[in-house]
């Protein structure tokens, strides 16, 4: 696959490295000259210098033949625009946008830009982790962007087993982004019913861990079960 990654920050760089290892063709577009020069030492011709919000920069990177565009800049407006243009003007099959501020997710939805967990997933595989019962594992902590991604395992006495995702009272500032079940990850819908052994990934504003821990623990869901 030919994949264009926009933004050579920590996430973009690691993702590009992973994708190259998987033998995809990758172009990373970075608009900061110094960052570009740093990343170029490793990624060489796989990184291109320019502002990917400009159509000619995308065209120079070969967006017409790209199978996927992944927008990972630290600016939500840029990510929205790049994905919108990729999808609607250049008819790129698959787009993945990074949401920096979880409160902007509604705008991504409004513009029809579906963020997917798979980009994050690829990066997350780089990280080794262990899941203690009911514990939270910090998978990603992006302090500057005020975003955390955590993983929780639903133990056998979690109060949420058998509950619909749509019925959960997720704390404000948090969002369930993925469920890993039997080794397979998927994005839950409101009708997804949680099962014992599910590993759920949630994105949240910093400081919401305890609220989530309470919800997913043995007492979780009692408060809102009516």
């Amino acid at each position, binding site marked *: 696959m030919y994949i264009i990654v926009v933004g050579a920050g920590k996430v973009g760089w690691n993702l590009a490295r992973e994708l190259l290892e998987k033998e995809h063709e990758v172009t990373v577009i970075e608009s900061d000259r110094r960052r570009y020069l740093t990343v170029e030492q490793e990624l060489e011709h796989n990184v291109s210098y320019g502002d990917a*919000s*400009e*159509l*000619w920069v995308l065209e120079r990177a070969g967006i017409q033949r790209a199978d996927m565009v992944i927008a990972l800049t630290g*600016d*939500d*407006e*840029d990510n*929205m*625009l790049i994905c919108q*243009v990729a999808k*609607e*003007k250049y008819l790129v099959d698959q787009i993945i946008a990074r949401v920096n501020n979880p*409160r*902007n997710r*509604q*705008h991504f939805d*409004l*513009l029809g830009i579906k963020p997917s967990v798979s980009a994050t997933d690829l990066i997350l595989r780089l990280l080794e982790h262990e899941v203690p019962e009911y514990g939270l594992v910090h998978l990603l902590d992006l302090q500057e962007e005020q975003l955390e991604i955590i993983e929780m395992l639903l133990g056998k006495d979690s109060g949420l087993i058998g509950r619909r995702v749509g019925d959960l009272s997720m704390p404000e500032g948090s969002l369930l982004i993925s469920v890993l079940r039997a080794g397979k990850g998927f994005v839950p819908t409101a009708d997804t019913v949680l099962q014992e052994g599910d590993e759920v990934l949630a994105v949240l504003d910093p400081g919401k861990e305890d609220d989530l821990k309470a919800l997913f623990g043995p007492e979780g869901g009692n408060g809102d079960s009516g």
Partner: protein
Amino acid sequence: MFVLIVGCGRVGSSVARGMMREGHTVSCLDEDPESHARLEVGLEKSWEDLGGQFTVGAGLETEALEAAGIGQADVFIASTDGDNTNIVISQIAQRRYQVPTVIARVLDPLRAEWYRRQGLQTVCPTKVAIDMLQSAVRDAGGRDGASPDDAAAEVA
């Protein structure tokens, strides 16, 4: 008409004053509280005394947009210094709040043109500058006796 202007820089503030003078209700939204002072340049009374509204906040914050009155806006103008911000918030105004007239200032001519074709009214100051410069050069050429028509005739 109720006009909401997001981005109260040189362009936004001048448009705001102009619309106010024409008798419209004008509300401005800007991240920078200091931009309020720019609004009042050349005014004899304060912006608020003249009936204007000013809200501090970002165009992507729906609370700020709502506080600035987007719900009753007849016209929405996005004139922040970021093209992408202007394009995104204009689409929010169109799709989420159904503002009847939405205009975005987009400096990049290519993006301005494409979004215009997608149904977003865009104003591109860069395009205006390019056209004016080209026209000024043509005028100068005309005075030297080498008008574009002559050039075309020679090529033909």
